[in-house]
Structures are given as structure tokens and as C-alpha cells.
């Protein structure tokens, strides 16, 4: 360990006394992070130039452009082609072309076409986001207005329906009452017998009248006859009495009684004659009245017949009325049901505000963490990126500076173990990277976003592991190549590979599956994702343990690999090693043949 300490001390002395090296190693990342901080410590899209083409001077498009002018520099062009050409000439970043006669909500006239330059991918996404938000906001506003109008109408309709529904109920009730009345009337009319009793036959009445007259005449005649006969009888009786042996007194009494009876019969006969006269007069009157009665009966019969006809007509009319009333009631009930349904449906609409309908799902993106600037979001990716390139470039440079220094041979001659040399190189580079990290974190925390580093221990652990991986990769490059230029090229290439197979340029999810799978093992991706989770989401280290163990596995595997490569290349360069190995491979091939 003493050797390691001595080698590390020597490395630092050499580094510190090499002015250019010190500047590059120490100031380089600081400048990078400072510039990155200045560049990303905002949440705006500055200096975005928007081109616009309006075929006609619609007020709405002018209003939209005015609102865009609040955030962007907007230039209007006379044609769509000019606008598109302006993108090609880098005069503007995007071109928005409005439909002719632009109008909200009118199909074919409500279109805004955006032209973007996809070769500026990052800007495209930023532009699309911002422009979509801006135009979408205006579109939403219009949509809300229209929806509000619609909703007001619906509300009005519902209110009217609710108001008029009572009237409809009243109509229904009245209809039902009417129906019932009609039905009762029908029953009444049905029960009404207007048929003339044929027993009251006029002919028979005539006959009866004639018979009564006859009977009366007969009775009168018979009466007169009886009275005559009674007088005759009394006269006869008187003659008898006179002729009788009865005492005279008795005969006189009898004759007096007879006489009195004859007087009475004669009075009766007078009365009879009077009665006959009266009866005949009365009968004439009766006959006249009977005639009138018969005429009346006949009239009544005729009236009753026509009344029955009317009744039957009325019954039919009432039947049809009842049917119509039933139908009407049914219709009213249907209308009522429909109004109920309308009311129910309208009542069932929970969202009654235009904003809620026009934008049923509010798609505003809320950050899961309370960060505000791009630097906050980019910081994990950025810091691991800086660590990666710093470690990949600085470590081989340091190693090759040492290996190619005049003292390399003498160092080789010292009885220092290979493990000590490797460990010393690792510690030197690691300390440098880590010190830079600390300084970068401090700069970012102090000058840019104070809340950027929340989980310091976790972040340091992740950064420590990530730094170790990249330092070891740098060592691998440093020990594998002889010349600094070659090593630098390889380091840059390796860094580029890590960068391309990561989610910095395009999301992992949009890559082919195989690429995405491979990218999952990319130490840069692992490091940045771990740091993002730890820094931005403040997750516990236990929840990212598998990823941490994977990175730790990388560290162990790379350490062994670096050791192996160092042992092989300490005496030989890689080329020499390959040359020595080549005969062995040839031999193996020969054996296989």
C-alpha cells in the first residue's frame, strides 16, 4: 500500500507541475459544467424563430401570431414555399401555415400545418412541444367557447323541459279525465234507450179509441135501453100492483115508490142523455187529443229515431275521440318520457363546464419532482456524460503520459507489484474525476440550482461507481494502446458508442428491441438512470440495488480485465502481444483443419 501511496503522490506531483495538464484536467470539466449550467439553467426556448404563412388576413390567425410573438420571434411570409425555404435557409426554425379562411371548428379550415427541420432533432421536439402548447392553447380556448355555447343551449333546453314537463303532466291528467268522461259518456250513451215502444201502436190506439167510443156508445145505448126497460118494468110493476090484491095502501105505497123510481129513472135518463152528450163531447175532445197524441207519438218516434241515430253517431264519434285521446295520451306519455329521458340524460352529464368538456383530460405535464430548469432534468445525464468523457479521455492520457515518460523504464525496474501500479493509476484517476465531480456539484449547487443535489450520499455512491467503471475503461484503453493519439481516438469512439446506444439522442424505447436491450447494459445508461432516480426521484439505494450491483459487477470485471491487460502489455505492447499470440491461433486453426 505504501507503494500505491507513493505512486499516487508521484502522479499528482507530475500532474500539478504540468501546467497544461493541470489546466486541461482540472479546468476542462469545470468549464464544461459551467457552460452547461449557463446553457441549461433555464426553462425557456430562447431565440426560436417562427415563420408563418397566412393565405388571408383572418383576425384569428393574427391573434394567434400575436400571442406567439410574446415568446418567439415570428416572421410572416408571403407564400408557404417561402416559409418552408426559410427553414432550409436557417432563417427560421419552424414554419406554420394556416388553412385558407382559417376558422375555428370548420373542417378543412381549421388546419395549422407545421413544417420542421427534423435534422435538428432536439430542437424539433422542443419546438413541437412549445408550438403545440401555444397553438393548442388557442385551439382549446376556441373549443371551450363553442362548447360553452352548446352547453348553454343544453342547459336552456333542460330548463324548458323541466318547466314544461309539469304542463305536460297536466295535459296528460286532463287527457286522462277527458278520456274518462268520454268513456262515461259512452257508457251513458250506450245505456240510453231511444227506441220507441212499439206497444204504443198508433193503430192500436186508433182501434182502442174507436173501440172505447163504440164501447161508450154501446154503454150509453145500453143505459138508455136499461132505463127504458126499467120504466117499462115499473109501469108493468105498477099495473101489476094495481091489479094486485095488495092493500091499496100497499098498492099506493108501491105505486108511489114505483112512480118515484120512474121519476128517478127519468132523471137518470135525463142525466144519461146529458152524460151521453157530455161523453160524446168529451170523447170528441178525447179523440182530438188522441189524434194529437198519436201525432205526438209519431213525432216522438221520429225524434227518438233521429236521437238514436245521433246517439249512435255520437257514440262512434266518442269512440274515435276516446281512441284519439288514448293515442294522444300515449303520445303525450311518449313526449313526457322523451322529456324525462332528455332531462335525465342532461341531468346525468356530470361535467357541465366548457373547459372540462373541451379538454376532458387535462394533459398538462407535471414534473414528478419540483425542478424548474433544463439543468435540473439534464443534470444526471450531463454529469455522467462529463464523468464518462473525462474518465475515458483523462485516464488513458495519464497512463500513457506515465508509460511514455522517461521514467517509465525505471518504474518498471522497481520491485513494485503490477497490482500496485494498476491500483495507483486507478486511485489517481478516480480521485481526479471525483474531485472534479465534487467541484462540479458545488458549482452547480452554488451558482445554478441550489436544490439540484438532494440525495448527496446516494448521488456520490452512484457517481463513484460510474466513475470507477469509466476510469477502468480508460485504464483498459491506456494499457491497450501505445500512443496517446490512438488511445484518445479509441476513448472518444467508445464514448460515442456509449452515447449513441443511450437515451441521450433518442429514447431507448424508440430503438430496435435488440439495441434497446443492449443499451440497458450500457454503463453510461446505467449510471445516468441510477443518478436520475437517486437525484431527481430521491429513491432509496435499496430500490436500485440490482442496478447498483450490476455497475459494481462491471467494476469488478473491468478491474480484473485491466489487471490482465496490464500484465500482458507491461512488457509488450498490444501489437506485440497479438503477434505472439498469432502463432498459437494459427496452430489451433491448423489442428482443427
Amino acid at each position, binding site marked *: 500500500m*505504501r*507503494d500505491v501511496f*507513493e*505512486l499516487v503522490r*508521484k502522479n499528482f*506531483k*507530475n500532474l500539478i*507541475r*504540468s501546467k497544461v495538464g493541470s489546466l486541461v484536467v482540472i479546468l476542462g470539466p469545470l468549464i464544461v459544467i459551467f457552460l452547461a449550467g449557463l446553457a441549461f439553467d433555464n426553462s425557456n426556448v430562447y431565440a426560436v424563430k417562427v415563420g408563418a404563412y397566412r393565405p388571408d388576413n383572418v383576425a384569428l390567425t393574427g391573434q394567434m401570431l400575436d400571442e406567439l410573438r410574446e415568446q418567439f420571434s415570428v416572421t410572416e411570409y408571403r407564400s408557404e414555399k417561402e416559409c418552408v425555404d426559410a427553414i432550409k435557409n436557417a432563417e427560421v426554425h419552424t414554419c406554420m401555415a394556416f388553412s385558407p379562411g382559417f376558422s375555428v371548428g370548420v373542417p378543412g379550415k381549421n388546419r395549422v400545418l407545421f413544417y420542421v427541420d427534423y435534422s435538428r432533432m432536439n430542437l424539433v421536439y422542443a419546438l413541437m412541444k412549445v408550438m403545440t402548447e401555444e397553438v393548442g392553447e388557442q385551439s382549446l380556448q376556441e373549443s371551450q367557447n363553442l362548447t360553452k355555447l352548446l352547453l348553454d343551449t343544453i342547459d336552456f333546453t333542460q330548463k324548458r323541459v323541466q318547466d314544461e314537463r309539469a304542463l305536460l303532466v297536466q295535459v296528460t291528467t286532463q287527457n286522462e279525465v277527458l278520456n274518462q268522461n268520454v268513456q262515461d259518456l259512452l257508457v251513458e250513451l250506450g245505456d240510453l234507450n231511444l227506441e220507441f215502444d212499439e206497444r204504443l201502436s198508433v193503430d192500436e190506439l186508433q182501434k182502442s179509441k174507436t173501440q172505447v167510443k163504440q164501447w161508450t156508445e154501446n154503454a150509453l145505448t145500453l143505459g138508455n135501453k136499461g132505463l127504458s126497460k126499467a120504466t117499462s118494468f115499473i109501469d108493468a110493476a105498477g099495473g101489476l100492483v094495481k091489479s094486485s090484491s095488495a092493500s091499496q095502501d100497499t098498492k099506493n105505497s108501491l105505486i108511489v115508490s114505483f112512480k118515484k123510481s120512474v121519476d128517478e129513472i127519468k132523471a137518470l135518463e135525463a142525466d144519461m142523455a146529458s152524460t151521453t152528450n157530455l161523453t160524446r163531447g168529451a170523447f170528441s175532445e178525447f179523440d182530438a187529443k188522441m189524434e194529437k197524441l198519436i201525432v205526438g207519438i209519431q213525432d216522438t218516434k221520429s225524434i227518438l229515431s233521429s236521437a238514436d241515430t245521433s246517439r249512435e253517431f255520437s257514440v262512434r264519434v266518442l269512440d274515435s275521440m276516446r281512441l284519439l285521446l288514448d293515442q294522444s295520451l300515449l303520445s303525450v306519455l311518449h313526449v313526457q318520457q322523451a322529456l324525462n329521458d332528455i332531462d335525465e340524460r342532461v341531468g346525468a352529464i356530470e361535467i357541465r363546464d366548457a373547459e372540462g368538456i373541451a379538454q376532458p383530460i387535462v394533459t398538462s405535464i407535471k414534473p414528478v419532482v419540483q425542478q424548474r430548469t433544463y439543468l435540473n432534468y439534464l443534470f444526471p445525464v450531463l454529469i455522467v456524460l462529463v464523468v464518462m468523457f473525462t474518465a475515458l479521455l483523462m485516464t488513458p492520457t495519464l497512463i500513457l503520459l506515465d508509460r511514455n*515518460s*522517461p*521514467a*517509465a*523504464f*525505471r*518504474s*518498471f*525496474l*522497481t*520491485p*513494485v*507489484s503490477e497490482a500496485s501500479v494498476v491500483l495507483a493509476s486507478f486511485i489517481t484517476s478516480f480521485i481526479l474525476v471525483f474531485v472534479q465531480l465534487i467541484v462540479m456539484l458545488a458549482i452547480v449547487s452554488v451558482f445554478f440550482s441550489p436544490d439540484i443535489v438532494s440525495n448527496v450520499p446516494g448521488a456520490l455512491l452512484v457517481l463513484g461507481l460510474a466513475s470507477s467503471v469509466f476510469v477502468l475503461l480508460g485504464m483498459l484503453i491506456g494499457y491497450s494502446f501505445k500512443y496517446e493519439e490512438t488511445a484518445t481516438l479509441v476513448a472518444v469512439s467508445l464514448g460515442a458508442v456509449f452515447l449513441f446506444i443511450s437515451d441521450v439522442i433518442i429514447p431507448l424505447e424508440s430503438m430496435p428491441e435488440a439495441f434497446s436491450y443492449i443499451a440497458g447494459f450500457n454503463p453510461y445508461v446505467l449510471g445516468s438512470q441510477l443518478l436520475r432516480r437517486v437525484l431527481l426521484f430521491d429513491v432509496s439505494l435499496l430500490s436500485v440495488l440490482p442496478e447498483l450491483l450490476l455497475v459494481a459487477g462491471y467494476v469488478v470485471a473491468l478491474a480484473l480485465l485491466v489487471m490482465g491487460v496490464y500484465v500482458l502489455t507491461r*512488457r509488450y505492447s498490444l501489437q506485440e502481444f497479438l*503477434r505472439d499470440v498469432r502463432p498459437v491461433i494459427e496452430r489451433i486453426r491448423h489442428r482443427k483443419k
Partner: protein
Amino acid sequence: MAVVSPINESLSEHVHVLKGSREDTKKLLLEAGWPEQQVNDYVARTFKNVPNESVLSVHGVVKSFQDHKVLQGIDLDVRKGEIFGIIGMSGTGKTTLLNVIVGFLRPDAGDVLLSVGNSSVGVLKNASLVKRHIGFSTQTPSFYPKLTVRENLEHFARLYRLSGSDIARRSNSLLDLVGLVDARDVLAAHLSGGMQKRLDIACALVHDPDVLILDEPTADLDPVLRKQFWELIRKVNAKGTTILLASHFLAEIELLCNRIAILQNGRVVELGTADELRQLYSRNYELFLQTASKDYRSVIQHGRRFFYKFSEEDGELVIQTPFPERVLNVISSTVSRGDVVSLHISRPTLGRVFEAVVKR
């Protein structure tokens, strides 16, 4: 194989050309018919500064880079306390051999053994242990330019796991040894070339290694600094550190090294002391005669049979001969003293040996 030259005994001090170990030399001389006493005296005299104990042994080391075989079976021993030199043309595998020795390069075949205590340990299998006993200074100084002189020393001392007090003591001692006391707090990058070289040596010595390996240590130094550096190497060696020195500066190797190995095409083609190598590849002495008359016909006529080669260059007769005494006799008998302008006799330099090896 050792070769013994049939040289006049009177010049034996310079003409015994031997290669190999003390025992090999003795054996070969005896086989060549030398009297045993004379052989013993010779061996004792020749190897008087050369310890017999091997501290570093290279056995059959082969190393290829792609299809190019850089080392093709290197065998050599470095003895304790000696300064062992390796020379060779560029690309002959000197640095590769040193890298294999310190374990920086793995040989395709062969092994390198280092004596640690009473045992020999393989460099590759005991890299950590071996590193504690070997110091290495490369052609390009190897230290951290952004650290001060003291920080560099202390850094490497700590990596060699010296205790705190030892670090300070050792650093001070080395600063004193390499003459960088005044520059101890200066950034290494701000040192001059010579000082950087000395700092590199100090760094290589910080853990007090048994063997110090120097690869082209004076390649970038001016003659003055180079001489200072040679002094430093001698001082280090005087403290008991075995030094393995690879250089293409033949004078440096000749001056400093007890023994020298010549590498050619990935092999050790010659190994021995400087004298031995000179004898092996150039038995001839060189005589440079310049007369006022510039007429050398008589000398050539009478002395031709003793000449190996001769030439006239700029009025001067250059004679290469294995029998300088006889040629001198001929000159003295054929050229009057008054006519002699100059007469020089010299042994062949290591450079000529090296050239001979390369030409071969």
C-alpha cells in the same frame, strides 16, 4: 575457444590473446606447451583485477522481433566487481540484451541468472527479487522531469522500499557521489545533459544494487562530461558495484572495462580483456617511419619478410608487423639516424579490433 598466439615472450605482457575464463586460459596455455610456472604467473598477472565469482550469467538467450532475430544465443558471465563492456555496431542487439537481462524483455529462449547471496536466481522467474539487485541506466535518462532531483531519488527509493532514514541517507550519499548536491531541489527537467545523466545513475543506484547496467551512458555527452562520467563510473565500481556497460564508444570501453564482449549479428563473437582482444585481432604492431629523403625502398627490401602489411601515406611509411623488434633492427640497419624524421610504434587500438571483427 581460447587461442594462444605464438608471440615473443618478451612482449607477452601485451600479446597474450585469450578468451574465456581464468581456468580456460590456464588450460589452453598449458596445452600450447607453456611451462606451468609461466602459465600461473601469466594468469595471476592477467586476471589480477578480475574477480573469479560470476554475478550475472546469460545462457543461450535468443530474442526475435517478428522475423528479425536480434539475439541468436548469447552466453556470457559478468563477474563480481568487474566492469564488463559490451560493444557492437548499432542494431547488433546490445540494448535488447540489456533489456533481457533486466527482465524488461522476455527472451524467446535461454535464461539469465543473477547471483543473490549464495544462490543463482532466474531473472524472469524472480523479477521482483532481481530488481532489487540490479540498477539500470539507459541511454535516455529515466526519471520524472517534473520532480526535483531529490524527489526523484526519494520516489524511487520508496519504491525500492527503503526506510525513511535510509532514504534520506542514501539520497544524500548519492547526491554527493554524482555531484548534484547543489541541484537537489532543481526540477530534473531543468538539469543540463550531464547532470541528468548523473541523476539517472543516482536513480539507478538508489537501492544500492549489486549490478549496475549502463546502456550507452555517454552517448549524448560532450568529451568533458564524458570524462567526468567515466570518473563517476570508476567511483561507483570502486564501491564494489559490478558494472555492465554497453557502448559504442570503444575508447570508453577500452578505458573502463575489465572485460569486453563484442556483439555481432546477435552473437558474442569475441570476449576478453582489451589486450586479449587486441592480440586476437591484431597481432601486428604499427610502425610509422618518416624520413627526410622519403626513400623507404631499402627498408621495404630488407624488412619485407617481417611485414604483415605496409603502405606509404603522405610520405610516411606505415608498417604493420607482428615482429616490431625485427623491423626496428632492419630500420636501424638501413636508415641512417640523420635521415629519420620520426619513428612511432604503437599497439593496435580496440577500434581496429572492432573493425576487424565487423569486416569479418
